[in-house]
């Protein structure tokens, strides 16, 4: 069983601008985002007694406390799996609140991922045991590693890169009307997508790849009861889970019998549906982690929004745009808004429940934030 239903709520969100060159330290980005989230909740730094971030985040908890003025913190934890753990951040924070380990937990993620350490460059992670089996063969970037998984999906279900392009066009359309987005007012056509250069031919083009971004985001998690008394409408954490499975890497899983499927997301989906009693038709919008566009296809299928191999038709038929049955990545996603390691997706989920998104889905009551091997389902409390 996953986390107890409505164990906690999100009471505040904050962020810096999203850019390609922030011009300041990663710690400053983190401090600015955290301060903004605390202010948004109507709390003070001294109210915070818990901190959660990713294992890969460069910002030390103590350094952040010193900067923001958080006087005493009694709970810290970090989630593994990089962006795949972005929704797990919320699970950690909610679990701490539910267990009484902390009353007010701040989640933060901040980096200069474009102007500083760029994850997409060859050879990142050398020395990690799993990468020993990939890097020497020239499987040396995330785009290539993921494409070796995507190729099986495309071959199994008969997709071309143009099918992936139809997702990108929608993400960029959503970004175009989101002032927070790097690609604000810059929509693309399918032709633009098809004219972008190959990264891994014939699988990924440039416009299938997430951005590289500088920026910071933060969220404040507290009990649902307390959140209801704070400044913003409470956004309840209806469900939260991780979906780690044997033999998988963080997201792809070369050793699973069927690489046209996403076993981590299938496991997370099972946990989410069973623990919340909700079903795909109950979801008003979904924020879906997409370091690369095909990952959206696998996740739509893993959660049962459509059948296996049907995501290309689901997308082509207009379901995931504004006004569709399941608007996806209404902020533009990691392709259109920014790559803040998926945590910016959760902020958009919160805005949808509050009714404050730039691309608001009318009367959104349930929003799924799926990050592959972790997920959180948000509701209006």
């Amino acid at each position: 069983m996953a986390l107890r239903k409505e164990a906690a709520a999100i009471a505040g969100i904050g962020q810096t601008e999203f850019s390609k060159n922030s011009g300041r330290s990663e710690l400053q980005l983190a401090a600015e985002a955290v301060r903004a989230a605390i202010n948004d909740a109507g709390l003070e730094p001294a109210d915070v007694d818990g901190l959660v971030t990713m294992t890969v985040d460069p910002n030390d908890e103590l350094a952040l406390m010193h900067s923001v003025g958080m006087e005493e913190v009694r709970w810290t934890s970090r989630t593994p799996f990089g962006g795949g753990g972005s929704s797990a951040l919320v699970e950690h924070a909610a679990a701490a609140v539910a267990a009484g380990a902390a009353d007010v937990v701040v989640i933060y993620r901040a980096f200069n991922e474009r102007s500083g350490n760029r994850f997409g460059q060859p050879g990142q992670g050398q020395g990690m045991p799993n990468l020993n089996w990939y890097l020497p063969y020239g499987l040396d970037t995330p785009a290539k590693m993921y494409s070796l998984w995507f190729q099986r999906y495309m071959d199994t279900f008969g997709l071309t890169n143009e099918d992936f392009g139809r997702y990108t066009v929608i993400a960029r359309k959503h970004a175009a009307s989101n002032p927070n987005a790097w690609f604000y007012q810059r929509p693309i056509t399918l032709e633009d997508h098809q004219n972008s250069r190959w990264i891994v031919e014939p699988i990924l083009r440039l416009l299938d790849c997430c951005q590289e971004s500088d920026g910071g985001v933060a969220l404040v998690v507290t009990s649902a009861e307390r959140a209801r008394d704070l400044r913003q409408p409470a956004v309840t954490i209806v469900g939260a889970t991780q979906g780690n499975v044997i033999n998988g890497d963080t997201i792809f899983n070369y050793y699973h019998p069927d690489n046209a499927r996403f076993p981590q997301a299938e496991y997370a989906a099972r946990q989410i549906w069973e623990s919340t009693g909700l079903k795909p038709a109950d979801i008003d919008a979904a924020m879906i982690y997409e370091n690369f566009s095909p990952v959206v296809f696998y996740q739509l299928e893993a959660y049962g929004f459509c059948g296996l191999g049907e995501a290309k038709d689901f997308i082509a038929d207009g379901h995931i745009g504004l006004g569709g049955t399941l608007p996806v990545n209404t902020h533009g996603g990691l392709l259109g808004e920014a790559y803040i390691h998926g945590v910016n997706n959760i902020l958009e989920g919160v805005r949808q429940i509050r009714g404050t998104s730039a691309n608001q889905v009318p009367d959104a009551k349930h929003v799924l934030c799926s990050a592959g091997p972790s997920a959180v389902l948000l509701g209006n409390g």
Partner: protein
Amino acid sequence: MPRVIAPVISRDDEYFWKGVAEDRLLARCCAGCGRLQHPPTPMCPKCGSVAWDVRELAGAGFVYSWIVSQHPTQSEDAPRVVALIELDEGLRLVSNLAGIEPADVRNGMRVGVEFGEIDGVKLPQFRPVTGGLS
């Protein structure tokens, strides 16, 4: 950055690279229950044994999936075909395909192992063999 990112060898996978040095494709085989394991783990996930034997694999299998890696690791280097190989023993491993143009690669194609050296790093490579699709 070198042309080939050399493996960082650990206690858990040194048997594999010793095998490669001798033109042998090796996998860990659990001394307790006989399970073949790749990538290697220090403990058998089936029976919990930490005692491992090494077994030489036949080096025959098929292409499960594949990509073309453009400018692998260095911008001026020629493309290499990277494939996920499913071996007849039921294990999968990532390697390269040699002796074939990308346009001719198909999932299910039968391949066999050989050993090659790239920029001073010896690696298992696979080459198409007659026998057609798996």
